[in-house]
């Protein structure tokens, strides 16, 4: 188990090192997320809709789109110079390879989400106060859930002709349950509701994460192996 995890971390570290050299997807993901938030502010009528009503959905639509944009890079970097073949030849179990890729994706999307959150607070004039830990927990659980299916699909779509178009078509249905739960939980957190009201949604997110990380890890081998 320790060896398995170490190999997964090696794969994740490789991806993170690669990304830190170019910063392409982090930068484009963050700018993209900021622009989506900006559009949300102009697309609403401030006299008829209060910020608190719109804020949770704006945040989660932004996070979902930013995640899709960031996911696109995951396996497209492996395509250049047939790097994927090298990776597959390395003595790494497919489950560990999946988990490493998944961890790297989780790191990128979390960074994009973390940079976007202050912008969100600023644009929507919110007072997070003591709500920040709750929001981080919800965001972490939801992101962990939809990135599992997202990682498998990003490995699939690099073999197709229109990868950037194909990924959202496949991954968005899988994003709906976690995003729905996260938006509901965020709305209750921002509204200052007691923690007991969001426990059901947190449990739902937890189940979703466990189920999809397990099944995606199991099926990943069928996607990368010839």
């Amino acid at each position, binding site marked *: 188990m320790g060896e398995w995890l170490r190999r997964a971390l090696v794969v994740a570290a490789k991806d993170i090192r690669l990304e830190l050299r170019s910063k392409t997807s982090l930068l484009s993901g963050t700018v993209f997320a900021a622009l989506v938030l900006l559009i949300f502010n102009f697309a609403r009528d401030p006299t008829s809709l209060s910020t608190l009503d719109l804020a949770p959905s704006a945040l989660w639509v932004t996070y979902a789109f930013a995640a899709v944009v960031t996911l696109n890079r995951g396996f497209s970097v492996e395509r250049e110079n047939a790097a994927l073949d090298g990776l597959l030849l390395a003595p790494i179990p497919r489950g560990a390879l999946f988990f490493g890729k998944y961890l790297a994706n989780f790191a990128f999307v979390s960074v994009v989400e973390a940079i976007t959150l202050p912008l969100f607070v600023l644009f929507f004039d919110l007072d997070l106060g003591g709500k920040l830990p709750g929001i981080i927990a919800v965001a972490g659980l939801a992101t962990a859930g939809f990135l599992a*299916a997202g990682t*498998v*699909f990003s490995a*699939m*779509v690099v*073999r*197709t*002709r*229109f990868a950037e178009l*194909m990924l959202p*078509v*496949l991954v*968005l*249905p*899988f994003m*709906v*349950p976690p995003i*729905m*739960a996260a938006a*509901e939980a965020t709305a209750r957190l921002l509204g200052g509701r007691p923690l007991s009201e969001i426990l*059901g949604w947190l449990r*739902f997110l937890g*189940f*979703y994460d466990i*189920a*999809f990380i397990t*099944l*995606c890890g199991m*099926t990943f081998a*069928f*996607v990368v192996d*010839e």
Partner: protein
Amino acid sequence: MSNGELERAGRVVRRGGWITGAALAGVAGIYVMALAYTPVEVRQGPAQKIFYIHAPAAWAALLAFSLVGLASILYLWLEDPRLDRFAAASAEAGVAFCGVVLTTGPIWGKPIWGTWWTWDARLTLTLFLFFLFLGYLVLRQALPDPSERGRFSAVVGILGMLLVPFIHVSVYLFRTLHPQPILIKPSSPSLPPEMLRTLLVSFAVSTLLYVGFVTWRYGLTLALEAREHHARG
């Protein structure tokens, strides 16, 4: 060799055509039965007649998608191309039936509920299954290599099966408007015998239509493969 394959494909296509033709005649029969034989529902009036198309189509869509999931699991295990062909044909038929469900539902919903659409648990689930399997078919089209196409779409099919209970639970947390099941429930069916008979016949017909569609599509895939095989020499 290639001619033999093509002939075999032709036989399957013809068989599918016959079954589909018989099932379509059955659909016409259901219309006659629903209009002439079954009583008019007291509260809903003639609008309820669409039920004899809507419910059987929903059944066929559910059957189709479940079999895609099952065939996907078996395909990853056995790697039999027949399972992949069947899954693709079943997904296509399922999307067609799902389209019927999603169009007949609002037609009924407007006079009875007063709205075309509502984010009710079952409606949302059906809509998502529709999108999920549209994505499945789009992915298949974008993958030229048959072995890759088979494996990838099987993985999508399996992940989709896991998604269904989660969509179901998440939308059930909102209040539901859809009529509760009246046929499959612990107590006995609460329908007049004429309605029950019409409904059972319509379920049989929609199953037959599903079999016809899948056989037909399966034969067409065989024909396409035979031609590609022939072209490559």
